[in-house]
């Protein structure tokens, strides 16, 4: 079905956008490196391929006049998802261009901001590219060479978005969300449980809340137990006396 294909493709684009954002945040800081620049480049290219694929699919679906109203509403919702993803990508690409220009890697007098992040972003990029391990094969001066390509790609994305705005007549504000407030809590229950084990993040947040919750359960169980005991004792006493 066209809808399911669209959804999977949108999910993929969404994943790549999220990973790209994580990578751009690491730019300019101490976790910046040649590898990061290469990861950015690869993620970007993947995002663009996905974007083009999504666009052709969705425009084909929306142009079809013979679909039902519900279908059309669904496609419009998917279209809004797609355009929001593209906007996020667009902003991230422009920012990465700016920060990349401000923080060239090879200049010895220019220092990276010491933010405290030192790890590499290989795993994030691997997630974006859906591979197990990332291979690095770029030249030493990727940071300057890549920027020109990035400029052209940004221009392409801008043009694509303009075309989309012109050609597809979808009113984004008319779309109603399917998820309600707090929907993100539901499907991440499994993820949430595993994060309980993570240490409390900054000194402010007391660890006791995590332990406090389990402690509370214990106290509650204890209270119920004593109440049951008391009732049993009273009943026994009454039985004996009567």
């Amino acid at each position, binding site marked *: 079905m066209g809808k399911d294909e669209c959804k999977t493709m949108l999910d993929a684009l969404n994943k790549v956008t999220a990973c790209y954002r994580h990578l751009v945040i690491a730019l300019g800081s101490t976790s910046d490196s040649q590898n990061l620049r290469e990861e950015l480049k690869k993620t970007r290219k993947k995002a663009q391929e996905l974007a083009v694929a999504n666009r052709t699919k969705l425009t084909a679906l929306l142009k079809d006049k013979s679909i039902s109203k519900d279908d059309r509403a669904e496609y419009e*919702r998917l279209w809004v998802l797609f355009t929001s993803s593209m906007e996020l990508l667009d902003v991230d690409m422009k920012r990465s261009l700016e920060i990349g220009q401000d923080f060239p890697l090879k200049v010895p007098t220019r220092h990276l901001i010491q933010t405290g992040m030192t790890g590499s972003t290989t795993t994030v990029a691997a997630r974006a590219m859906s591979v197990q391990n990332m291979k690095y094969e770029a030249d030493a001066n990727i940071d300057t060479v890549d920027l020109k390509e990035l400029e052209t790609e940004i221009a392409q994305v801008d043009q694509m978005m303009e075309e989309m705005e012109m050609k597809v007549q979808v009113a984004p504000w008319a779309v109603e969300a399917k998820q309600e407030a707090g929907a993100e809590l539901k499907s991440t229950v499994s*993820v949430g449980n595993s994060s309980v084990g993570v240490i409390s993040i900054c000194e402010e947040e007391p660890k006791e809340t995590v332990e406090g919750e389990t402690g509370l359960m214990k106290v509650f169980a204890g209270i119920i137990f004593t109440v049951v005991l008391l009732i049993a004792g009273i009943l026994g006493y009454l039985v004996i006396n009567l």
Partner: protein
Amino acid sequence: MTIRNVRDHGQRYRPRMACLKKVENVVLEMQDPKSGVKSQTQRLVITSIPHKYILVLCNLMWDAVLLIWARAMGTMMVAFGYIYPLQDHKRLILKPDTSLYRFQTPYFWPAQQWPVEDTDYAIYLAKRNIRKKGMLELYEQEQYNNLYKWVNHKWDFIVMQAKEQYRAGKERKKPDRVVFDCQERAYWVVHRPPPGTVSAMDYGHDRMVDPNMEEKKTSDYYRRTYTTTYKEHDPFLHACLPSNPWLTDDVTYWTLNMPNVETPTKMRVECWTFSFGELLMDPRGRADFRLFLKKEFSGENLAFWEACEDLKWGAAETMKEKAQQIYKTFLARGAPRWINIDGKTMDITVKGLAHPHRYVLDAAQTHIYMLMKKDSYGRYLKSPVFKETQRKAIAPEPHRFTETQLEQNAKRRRPSLSPITLRQQEEEQKAKLAASGPVDITQVMSKLEKKQKA
């Protein structure tokens, strides 16, 4: 598609935010391992994070005066979000004790050209919701509910993106995850301050227009300047001085503003300064201007203009004679009151005069009008004649009538001067003017020549 136009304009025209670029340079200098700020490693329970700073102020300066300056600079950097505190993260100040701070990553620096989007904030709140399992702080919860209402059409995207970003974040190592969470939290404390705190990013209302650019003179601009100039003169908006005759039945206002009154009111004189048209349309103003031109011996322009007006509005039967008269007096070579217009206009006018009609002198009249406006009007406003008139102008006191007085005024109502009388007065004035002494330089010169010959 988000509607991006409005916010973007506002962000660009914020001259106060030009300081951000300078702060960025300072922050970059601070990174220098030799001359910058010293850092240390922080030990958390399971892991250790490098690059936490104790900003000991005595490292930065060596004088008591500079201490205050350094602290102010430091507080500003924290308030803008270039450095964030680790303990007490909601109060963005630089404390002079051993509290710890960390540098913010360039992506999260405040930037003039990147407006802070509500979509991003919604994604952040959703991520926080996941992490805290629904226990958001009160103001965050309120913001979350608001955003759910206002950005509802993107809500699916926000939820999807939040989940994905959360999962992608988990791919990084533990210390980096901790740092990233701190960074994001600090960023949003700066840009969406909790209630009761002061934000350094507060720049007042968004501006739609660049305040440094020259305003484009559209019809809106002209309408605005007109209303601001004429605001005081509008009898609907401001009280008429001394009193509105229609309301109080007291005709002082009309007698003071008669066409040929000796001393005009201050409001009337102010009106003449607004534009040349106002000056000419007011008979008293025109008389004043005529007086000024007489002193300068260049009255022929005004006389020509008046004659053209007479031709335009006059009766049809007298048109031919009037046109001939004007030609003889003003336009012909060697005429007694010759006006100075350029050759092309003169050609057109003379050709048109062969078959005169009402508007035959329009081109010449416009030329003379512009000449007077650009040249004589400016000089008139600075002249002693005008200054004298301004000084003598009266500013009548507003009337304060009681009920009985108003009734008496109503009883004493009389019709005004008959228009026939007014017309006669005008004619008398014109005759007087014509009979007065030489007004133009040509007349003066011809008089002098005659005297010499005699």
